[in-house]
């Protein structure tokens, strides 16, 4: 209990000690203090602080040095750094002050672990000032009598402390006030500077940790002056056109300082300064005449000064002043050249004299006019012609010859030396050799090797090559000893045509030309390729050259790149002069993509893609297939024909057996019946109503190929069927049908017409004829099975008589038929077939069609009296064979005229081959 109250009392005492005013007048009576009090420490040094407790606190508060705790800010310093010196003093040591921070406090841990602060100090850590280095001073002239000296130095490292710098200076027996810099620590300006006395200048730096002085600088301020630049500079023209006089005023009297000068000048439009030699202006002066200037040129001048002996500093350059030199006569004649136009007439030239205006430094003034003098050298008697020109060209009409042209430029002062150009009748002299161009440093140079003869000068012509405009010639002249010139105004990526002419004293050499680029680029576009011709395995590509504007350089080659859709790309390089190329070894019937690339020295550009498809068959392949096939077919046909021809007898024997002529049979004289009627009406005779409706007469035009349509073939089919149906019943009546076999003959006969075989048994049959197409057959022919022979007497003469009344055409027709029958009898069927075949343009099919169908429905009159069914069919064939025209033929073999024919209906011998219906 006592102890408890004791500690309470102790704490109360401490508080009272800390808070109560002390006897010295302070408000706080501390229980201790730290020494040193707020030290300034060198960075990196060691430091020891002592905390000393008051005895009074010991006695009352029962606190001792062993209870002291040191803290930096709020961080406890390790106990290892403590040392208890005695019961009231504790020290702390820091080996490196860089570990220190503010505040450093001394605290005590009283009983009950209550930490109380006893005292604290502020620790300042920094560095002592370094010795200022590199002290230098300069005296600036501020006005005519005012000079200030500014000294600068290197203050050294940062000290982290408040460091005072002061510039001090003195004479040996007089010390001046210090110069204390404001806001800076490395310079100071002294205003009361005095010349001609050596002044010792130094810098002193001081802070809490020490003081340092720079090395002294001993200098007479007059030797470090930077004077003001000369003022009131003026420029005036001198007596000569090449001189300008420069005047100025100096700020410093010679009594103080003698000066030397620098004068610089330039042409007003130029940027480069020229300087008057310093030796010329090394003495005090206030004016100077600048010589060697160009006449009639505006110059800019500027001047500066410094102490004559070179000590000190140059002043700034003065303000710039301009001056104009006066005019002088032109220093040289204008460069002269000509362009001769001989297009009108070779004997009369149009000479365009052209010359360049003199450059300002050559003109030396304003050129008022040019004087052109032309002298005909080929004719001494010709007068000299003079022209005054104000422009820079002049055109003359001159006869062909040799002329000397002289040109003089004139200004207000005088005339230039003459420029002479010899225009010879022909450029017969030696040209330059080895003409070449050299792009160099973004300039285009043209060089050449001089010819052996002495050349006065060279004329270099050049022009921009363009596809859209004419070549506008530019030119320049080079002296005879020059073999390389730079061309002005050359643009990159443009093609120039450059020509060099050597000019001799007595003539002119022919020009040598070369094309050149200053810089090349890749073409601005690629060639557009397309196919000219596409085959099975090759394609002919064609393209146009790029225009010179598109080339951007010399086209070194074209590259063709082509590929199939899924194939690799094939590359072909083509000479740049070509505009066509044939791709070979292509795959047939394949889509190809082709594009083309133009290349210069600096790159390439590809044109658009073009696609094409190769053909499936090559040239002549179709012909090679078709022609042999046709030939083979024709050969087969020919062989067939030959075979038929050779075997015609055999064929005839097998196909067309010999049919006995009924008229020659004995029964021909027998007529079993009398004709039912005798119609002497010729028309009726020929076309008895209803009697011919069963006969189809077909007229087929030989060229009417369309007529052989299937529709037309149908009746034939029917007919064939009818034939088939009649097979076995027909006996080949009439014996005239080549298509009829002995047992398959088709007989179209009139009513009562009989067909009789020559065999012992004459078969008569009933033939039901089909009508042609939709015609209903009205006649039924019956074939008798009687074997009774026909009698000639049975043939009725009336029938013939009726026939005699028919028109001649009909007579002829029947006669022809009769004759034809005879021919048919005598000639093999094959021949007739052949004829038909020939008539129908060799169309064998046409022959078949011809036999079986008739395109024309025109009825063909048949002689009922005499014409047999065979004759009718034969006539059909004949009609077709001969075309529409039936040529009348007189059948001499027929001794009987129609009128003479017996008008009986008895069987008769039909000499015409016909037979009478029974």
């Amino acid at each position, binding site marked *: 209990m006592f102890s408890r109250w004791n500690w309470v009392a102790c704490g109360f005492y401490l508080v009272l000690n800390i808070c109560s005013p002390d006897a010295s007048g302070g408000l706080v009576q501390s229980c201790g203090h730290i020494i040193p009090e707020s030290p300034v420490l060198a960075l990196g040094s060691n430091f020891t602080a002592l905390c000393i407790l008051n005895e009074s606190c010991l006695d009352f508060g029962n606190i001792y040095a062993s209870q002291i705790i040191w803290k930096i800010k709020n961080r406890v310093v390790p106990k290892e750094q403590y040392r208890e010196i005695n019961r009231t003093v504790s020290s702390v040591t820091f080996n490196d002050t860089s570990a220190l921070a503010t505040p450093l406090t001394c605290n005590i841990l009283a009983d009950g672990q209550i930490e109380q602060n006893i005292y604290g100090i502020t620790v300042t850590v920094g560095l002592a000032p370094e010795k200022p280095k590199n002290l230098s001073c300069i005296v600036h002239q501020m006005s005519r009598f005012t000079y200030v000296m500014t000294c600068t130095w290197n203050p050294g490292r940062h000290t982290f402390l408040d460091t005072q710098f002061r510039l001090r200076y003195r004479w*040996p027996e007089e010390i001046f006030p210090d110069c204390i810099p404001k806001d800076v620590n490395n310079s100071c300006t002294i205003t009361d500077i005095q*010349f001609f006395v050596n002044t010792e200048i130094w810098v002193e730096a001081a802070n809490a940790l020490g003081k340092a002085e720079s090395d002294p600088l001993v200098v007479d301020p007059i030797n470090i002056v930077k004077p003001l630049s000369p003022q009131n500079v003026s420029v005036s023209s001198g007596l000569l056109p090449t001189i300008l006089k420069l005047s100025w005023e100096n700020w410093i009297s010679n009594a*103080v300082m003698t000066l030397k000068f620098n004068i610089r000048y330039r042409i007003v439009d130029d940027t480069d300064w020229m300087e008057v030699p310093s030796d010329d202006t090394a003495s005090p002066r206030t004016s100077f005449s600048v010589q060697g200037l160009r006449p009639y040129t505006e110059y800019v001048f500027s001047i500066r000064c410094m102490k004559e002996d070179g000590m000190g500093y140059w002043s700034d350059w003065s303000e710039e002043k301009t001056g104009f030199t006066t005019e002088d006569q032109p220093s040289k004649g204008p460069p002269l050249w000509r362009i001769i136009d001989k297009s009108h007439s070779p004997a009369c030239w149009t000479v365009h004299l052209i010359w360049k205006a003199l450059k300002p430094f050559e003109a030396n003034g304003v050129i008022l006019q040019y004087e052109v003098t032309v002298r005909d050298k080929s004719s001494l008697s010709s007068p000299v012609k003079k022209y005054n020109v104000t422009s820079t060209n002049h055109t003359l009409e001159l006869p062909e010859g040799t002329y000397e042209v002289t040109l003089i430029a004139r200004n207000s002062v005088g005339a230039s030396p003459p420029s002479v150009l010899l225009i010879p009748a022909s450029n017969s002299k030696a040209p330059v050799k080895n003409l070449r161009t050299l792009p160099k440093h973004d300039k285009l140079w043209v060089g050449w090797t001089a010819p052996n003869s002495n050349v006065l000068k060279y004329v270099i012509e050049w022009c921009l090559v363009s596809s859209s405009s004419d070549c506008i010639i530019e030119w320049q002249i080079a002296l005879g000893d020059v073999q390389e010139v730079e061309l002005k105004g050359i643009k990159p990526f443009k093609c120039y045509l450059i020509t060099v002419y050597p000019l001799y004293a007595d003539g002119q050499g022919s020009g040598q030309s070369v094309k050149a680029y200053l810089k090349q680029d890749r073409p601005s576009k690629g060639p557009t390729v397309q196919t000219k011709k596409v085959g099975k395995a090759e394609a002919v590509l064609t393209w146009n050259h790029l225009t010179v504007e598109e080339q951007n350089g010399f086209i070194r080659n074209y590259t063709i790149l082509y590929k199939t859709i899924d194939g690799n790309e094939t590359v072909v390089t083509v000479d740049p002069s070509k505009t066509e190329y044939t791709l070979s070894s292509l795959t047939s019937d394949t889509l190809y993509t082709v594009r083309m690339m133009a290349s210069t020295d600096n790159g390439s550009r590809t044109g658009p893609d073009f696609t094409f498809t190769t053909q499936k068959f090559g040239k002549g392949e179709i012909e090679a297939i078709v022609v042999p096939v046709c030939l083979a077919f024709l050969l087969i046909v020919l062989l067939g024909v030959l075979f038929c021809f050779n075997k015609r007898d055999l064929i005839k024997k097998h196909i067309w057996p010999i049919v006995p002529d009924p008229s020659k049979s004995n029964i021909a004289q027998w007529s079993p019946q009398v004709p039912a009627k005798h119609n002497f009406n010729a028309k009726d005779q020929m076309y008895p109503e209803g009697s011919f409706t069963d006969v189809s007469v077909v007229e087929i035009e030989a060229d009417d190929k369309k007529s052989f349509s299937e529709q037309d073939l149908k009746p034939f089919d029917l007919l064939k069927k009818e034939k088939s149906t009649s097979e076995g019943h027909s006996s080949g009546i009439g014996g005239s049908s080549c298509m009829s076999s002995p047992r398959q003959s088709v007989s179209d006969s009139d009513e009562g017409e009989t067909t009789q075989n020559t065999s012992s048994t004459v078969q008569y049959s009933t033939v039901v004829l089909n009508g042609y197409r939709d015609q209903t057959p009205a006649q039924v022919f019956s074939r008798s099975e009687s074997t009774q022979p026909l009698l000639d007497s049975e043939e009725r003469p009336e029938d013939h008589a009726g026939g005699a009344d028919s028109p001649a055409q009909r007579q002829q027709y029947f006669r022809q038929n009769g004759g034809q029958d005879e021919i048919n009898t005598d000639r093999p069927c094959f021949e007739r077939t052949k004829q038909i075949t020939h008539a129908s343009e060799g169309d064998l099919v046409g022959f078949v069609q011809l036999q079986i169908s008739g395109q024309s429905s025109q009825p063909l009159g048949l002689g009922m009296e005499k014409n047999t069914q065979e004759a009718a069919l034969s006539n059909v064939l004949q009609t077709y064979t001969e075309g529409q025209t039936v040529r009348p033929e007189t059948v001499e073999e027929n001794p009987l005229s129609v009128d003479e024919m017996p008008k009986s209906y008895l069987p008769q011998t039909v000499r015409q081959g016909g037979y009478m219906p029974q």
Partner: protein
Amino acid sequence: MAAADSPSAALRRRDLCSRGIRLAGKMRADVVDLLDAYVEQQGLDASASVAAVEGVPLAAVERWDEQTGTQRLLENLAAYRAFRALLAQMLEEQREQLGEADAGLGRALAAVLLQVSAFAYHLEELLRLESRGVPGEEGDGPPPPPRLSLFEQKLRGLGVLRELAQWAVRSARDLRQLAKPSPATGAAPGLAESP
């Protein structure tokens, strides 16, 4: 003379002479300029004739060309020490009269005063090179001038500046004379004749 014989001493003397001459020239120029400013500032007539001012040494001297080097140096030193005191007094009076109203004139006076001091230093250095003792300044200096009226002060100041201008010319000539190489005595002509 031993010092005069050494090359470094000769160079030093030549340098001192050279810069002394130029300092004298600048001093004269500044004094002339200051005279104009002073006349204008004090409201005096530039053509006003000022009688000899007490305490101001006269630059004019007879048989100037017969003087020895040391004699020249001593006369110059005495004169410039006097000018230094006079100018300091003028500066004091100037400040009393005008305060800071005309700082330019005060700065110009101070500058001339510095130049006078610098020239006196040059002379002392030259005398030391001649192995001549530099005469000490008289204790408290010249006796204080009698109390003058303001106008008299102005006139005296005008006289001091005019005489200083004259002395600047003479001093330059004296130093040129000293700097001339003498074939007989080498680098120190005339000094041998000095007493």
